């Protein structure tokens, strides 16, 4: 019997390996190979209009040294920081607020939940278009209403002082449902008894939120924030449709700058170097996520 049993275990293990193998091979081919290619390209001055620049490793650090002295790159990182920090904070606040409202548990609020998640699932290009409509002075219902009551507002997306703010609004609108859904899921996991106990002890709403609910949703808020932070680094369609990085370069985030360098100016080596730095930055953030969720799990166990 033991021999036969061992045979079965080995067979089973082999079967599982066979099930994993195709996925691992495909994943390696479509993720690791491009990553290696990207890093190698970032060490060359590749420019598709100059054929001899491919695989020219004579000055491997060239792109990275140039990046350090490129004020437009530094500005793009700064724009990115402003965009990411403000949208993440706003999405957390709005998402938390709406989640607390929807947690009321009436039939209407249950139904409203599906409505609130619409912005998040719309194709990003459509989100861009519908905010383009909102921001275009001659067609936007908002601008026309303000003009009608005698307080015309100039277009936000063509004003260098306001363009980034316009993107922040649209980005917050698109992604607050994400934090809302995550927080709502966490709120619904809170057991009823501590809430009741606090209420019987005479705690007011703020105290119940701060001392009873908040500890339960704290780790969810952190995870939601980091997810939104990482995704905000990929912002593209909204900027593409609304401002194209402009006016000037006030809304040109790092992702957009890398896209421009590679696909508009054909500076593939330089674009790859920017993308490589972005991947490195995001890996650091991913590591933080893993630590945080691991810590949260350990706490829960």
């Amino acid at each position, binding site marked *: 019997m033991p021999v036969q049993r061992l045979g079965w275990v080995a067979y089973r293990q082999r079967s599982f390996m066979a099930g994993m193998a195709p996925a691992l091979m495909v994943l390696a081919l479509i993720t690791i190979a491009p990553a290696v290619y990207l890093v190698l390209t970032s060490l060359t001055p590749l420019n598709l209009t100059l054929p001899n620049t491919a695989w020219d490793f004579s000055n491997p650090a060239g792109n990275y040294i140039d990046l350090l002295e490129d004020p437009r790159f530094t500005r793009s990182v700064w724009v990115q920081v402003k965009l990411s920090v403000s949208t993440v904070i706003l999405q957390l606040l709005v998402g938390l607020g709406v989640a607390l409202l929807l947690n009321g548990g*009436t039939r*209407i609020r249950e139904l409203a939940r599906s409505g609130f998640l619409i*912005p998040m699932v719309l194709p990003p290009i459509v989100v861009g278009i519908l905010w383009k409509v909102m921001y275009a002075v001659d067609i936007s219902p908002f601008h026309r209403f303000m003009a009608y009551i005698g307080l015309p507002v100039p277009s936000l997306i063509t004003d260098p002082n306001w363009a980034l703010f316009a993107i922040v609004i649209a980005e917050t609108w698109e992604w607050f449902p994400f934090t809302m859904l995550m927080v709502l899921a966490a709120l619904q996991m809170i057991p009823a008894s501590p809430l009741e106990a606090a209420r019987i002890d005479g705690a007011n709403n703020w105290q119940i939120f701060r001392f009873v609910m908040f500890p339960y949703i704290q780790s969810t808020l952190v995870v939601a924030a980091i997810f939104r932070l990482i995704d905000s680094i990929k912002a593209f369609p909204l900027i593409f449709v609304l401002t194209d990085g402009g006016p000037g370069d006030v809304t040109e985030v790092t*992702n957009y700058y*890398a896209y421009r360098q590679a696909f508009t100016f054909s500076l593939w080596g330089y674009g790859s170097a920017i993308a490589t730095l972005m991947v490195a930055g995001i890996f650091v*953030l991913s590591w933080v996520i893993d630590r945080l969720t691991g810590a949260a799990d350990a706490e829960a166990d």
Partner: protein
Amino acid sequence: MQRQIEPQPAAPRARPGPASRYWFQRNRRWLGDMGTIALLLLVLFPFAWLVQMSFRPNKDILGYELLFEPTLAHYKALWTGAFPASFVNSTITSVSSTVLALVIGVPAAYALSRGGFRSSRRIALWILATRMAPPIAFTIPFFLAYRYLGLSDTLIGLIIVYLTFNLALVIWMMQPFFDGVPRELEEAAWIDGCGVWEAFWRVTLPLSAPGLAATAVICFILSWNDFFYALVLTRTNASTAPVAIVNFIQYTGWEWGRIAAAGTLVMLPVVIFSILVRNYLVRGLAAGGVKE
């Protein structure tokens, strides 16, 4: 020794507040509902505005009178242009990429769930990293490689690129569903003479059908919504609906009625699908961060 439950005098009930407090509580509920509806209308306003614009006749496209004679002119105009072909492209790439990701990813998710591999944690991290990596890091090498492989501006090229996010998503989403299926059921099938994959096909997979459906829908939505990859990797032959809208804007300018109609058509399938799978959306979109 177990503590005995002694009969206790009835605990004093929570003292009812003054009548006004009851009134306030009841109204708070009602006010909250009203607030929810008002907020929902506000949030969905830009969305609804685009939809109504798509039905407005050209001569008062800018109007905001609620009463207007709806017209399908914009939709008909779209039908004659390049838009229908892009819609077909979108459908083919999204469906194919979803099916391919499921075929490759589902067995892997099952193996990860049951195999007890020592490296499964490392694989999980790898998948998380794939989810996190910025698309620009994939588009540059894919664009360069496709020039040599002859895959630029082809549907196959797009389908492969969409696997970069769909495959990771399938593995990540399906694994907990398989974890939830009791192993005893498979073991019974094994005893009855089924092989590992036969038992999986006949027992485990049917029991995970809702999870499979939700995963498929989310893969479809992510591929359908993609703009960046399609913008960079296609020109004319393989351009998908989101890119077609942009091309259309570049050629004919901001012709609002038709843009609104195209936008409405592109978002229609995802709105329907996402409401169907709303309970799984967080798990899909936060793949890697939410452990249930």
